[in-house]
């Protein structure tokens, strides 16, 4: 029996930006990423998967892992999906579109929040399993890759169905006047920066507004700012909108990056319904999921809305429990 195709995406750029210098973020070298993919593939193959389609990243992370497995005599089919290589976020966006054509039932994404966001930007209603290697990891889960791979395999073989094992997540839809729209999975931030620059959000002072799909006190980054003052779980059909200002009456001391605390003053904290739209105008820079992404000009309108319009995410826990009950590995 042939299992369905599993997509594989590894972001070579994750885990290397300036936050390793300014904050205390970890370096993630690409050999380690390759090893993670290799472990995930072992899990998947041992759960019965045999079809893979991987995005040909510029660093040959996924390709390298598959080559290693092939040398070990594992049997599977792997399709290389070529993709533009600009060493920018565009690679993952275009890659998602290219991968979509191979119709993977679920795609393993190795990277940080930004990687998943870029992928979803290219393929809105994908099903994915994000594994963490990046910096502000709210979206991807920390999980041993072997087990994550096994969950992928269980879904690929049909032992566990997508309906049983996935959750549709929230997302922030961003409309930008006269330009391509954008999205954020966890947070969208409006800053007084003038440039995208080194991307990382490092200056709490520059932040004007924070939009959150979830406010988690157990995470770092912008989600913690909300999470430490008004927690909002992923399951709740609402978003959070906070406006900042030096005279704000609420104070939050939050880790805005790994190992880096700042005290932010909030003027207003409001819960957003899925129908609520917040509108404002530039000049500003918009940051999504921890990275400055868009430069907005003076007078240019921006609209933000939180909704459950995000991708479906594979729940490793649930999948493996079901797989165990169904004796997939017995």
């Amino acid at each position, binding site marked *: 029996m042939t299992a369905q195709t599993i997509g594989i995406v590894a972001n070579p750029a994750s885990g290397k930006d300036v936050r390793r210098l300014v904050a205390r973020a970890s370096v993630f070298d690409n*050999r380690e990423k390759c090893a993670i993919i290799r472990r995930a593939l072992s899990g998947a193959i041992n759960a019965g998967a045999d079809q893979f389609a991987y995005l040909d990243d510029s660093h040959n992370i996924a390709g390298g892992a598959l080559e290693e497995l092939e040398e070990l005599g594992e049997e599977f089919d792997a399709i290389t999906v070529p993709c533009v290589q600009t060493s920018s976020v565009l690679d993952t966006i275009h890659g998602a579109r290219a991968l979509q054509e191979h119709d993977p039932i679920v795609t393993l994404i190795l990277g940080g929040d930004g990687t998943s966001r870029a992928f979803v930007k290219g393929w809105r209603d994908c099903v994915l399993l994000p594994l963490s290697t990046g910096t502000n990891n709210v979206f991807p889960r920390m999980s041993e890759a072997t087990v994550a791979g096994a969950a992928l395999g269980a879904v690929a073989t049909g032992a566990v169905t997508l309906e049983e094992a996935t959750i549709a997540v929230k997302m922030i839809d961003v409309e930008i006047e006269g330009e391509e729209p954008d999205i954020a999975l966890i947070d969208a931030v409006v800053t007084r*920066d003038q*440039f995208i620059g080194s991307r990382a959000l490092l200056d709490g002072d520059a932040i004007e507004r924070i939009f959150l799909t979830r406010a988690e006190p157990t995470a770092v980054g912008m989600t913690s700012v909300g999470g430490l003052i008004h927690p909002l779980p992923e399951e709740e*059909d609402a978003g959070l909108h906070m406006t900042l200002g030096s005279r704000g009456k609420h104070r939050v001391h939050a880790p805005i990056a790994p190992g880096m605390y700042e005290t932010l003053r909030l003027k207003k904290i409001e819960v957003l319904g899925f129908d609520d739209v917040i509108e404002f105008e530039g000049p500003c820079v918009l940051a999504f999921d921890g990275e400055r992404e868009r*430069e907005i000009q003076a007078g240019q309108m921006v609209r933000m809305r939180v*909704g459950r319009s995000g991708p479906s995410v594979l729940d490793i826990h649930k999948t493996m429990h079901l797989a165990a009950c169904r004796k997939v590995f017995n």
Partner: protein
Amino acid sequence: MLAAKKKPAAKKTPAKKKAAPKAKKAAAKAKKAPAKKAPARKAKGPSEKTLKELHLKMVRIRRFEESAGKMMEDGKIPGALHLYVGQEAVAAGVMQHLSNQDWITSTHRGHGHLVAKGGEFKPMFAELFGRATGYCKGKGGSMHISSMDLGMLGANGIVGGGPPIAMGAAFSNKFRRNKNVAVAFFGDGASNEGSVHEAANMAALYKLPCIFVCENNGYGEYTAQSRHQAIVDVADRAAGYGMPGVICDGMDVMAVYEAAGEAIERARKGGGPTLLECKTYRYYDHVGVRGMGLNYRTDEEIEAWKKKDAIEGFEKRLKQLGVMTEKQIKTVHAAVEKDVDEAIEFANESPYPEADTLLDNVYNEKGA
């Protein structure tokens, strides 16, 4: 410590709990009033003066190099010439944080570094022309152009030659307890030289104010990076040296400016060295403009990188921000062009070094 329990003052329409998966945005109405007319928010980040200086540095490098390339093709410049065109954002973004008391070591592709460090066109062109009025009195040329007064410890004809010297200069800074830093520029090719590893290890060991700036332009001479090392990110090696490794977009001057700023500030405060990798590209060949016509990269690749041109992108943004108008930008280019023309004229008219100066400066005679 924090009043985390305080209820937010959200009194808007209660969020409808009905599951509305994948609701399309078309239905949504702008419910909230837009933020009242923004009370002139003060932008964060570098001053207009800084932005203009960054721009000027890049334009000066570009114009200098384009003209130098032309002079070489016209046979005015003897020897080899390695042009920096394409990589301007790196030199400009890093050097913006340095004073004349901070040291840099450069590479064979060194004109851009000297221009960004404050090098003047007249002695630079004169040096490339081999004249007595050059920065090195015609003894160094393109590959050894330097200015001790500007803190520029020389271009270097040896790949990997600079980092050990920069490490030594950083040692000197620390030894004399000043707050100056030393920056070693090197390429992806040089990252495979033992000298770079030794310098990086020692800089980390002694916690020296030394910044290792790897300008990864994807090629070591005519060999693609994938054919000269098993890694793609030179920054990955930082962990092995025991220093932070950071990657930034070397085609974006603000990305370099921010990342270098953090690394340099850290070094000045005694935090030790950083490996900063800037992903960049050289538009021209390893040597010269058209080079030797070797078939090692495609025109499509070159064009794709040119779409990310650092100067064009920055100028566009400066206009958007209202920092500079198109007219002002044109004026800058014209002024730089004039500087170039005057410098070339100066170099052309300058005398060659006298034969009897040949043996000068082999040794420091007065010190013996």
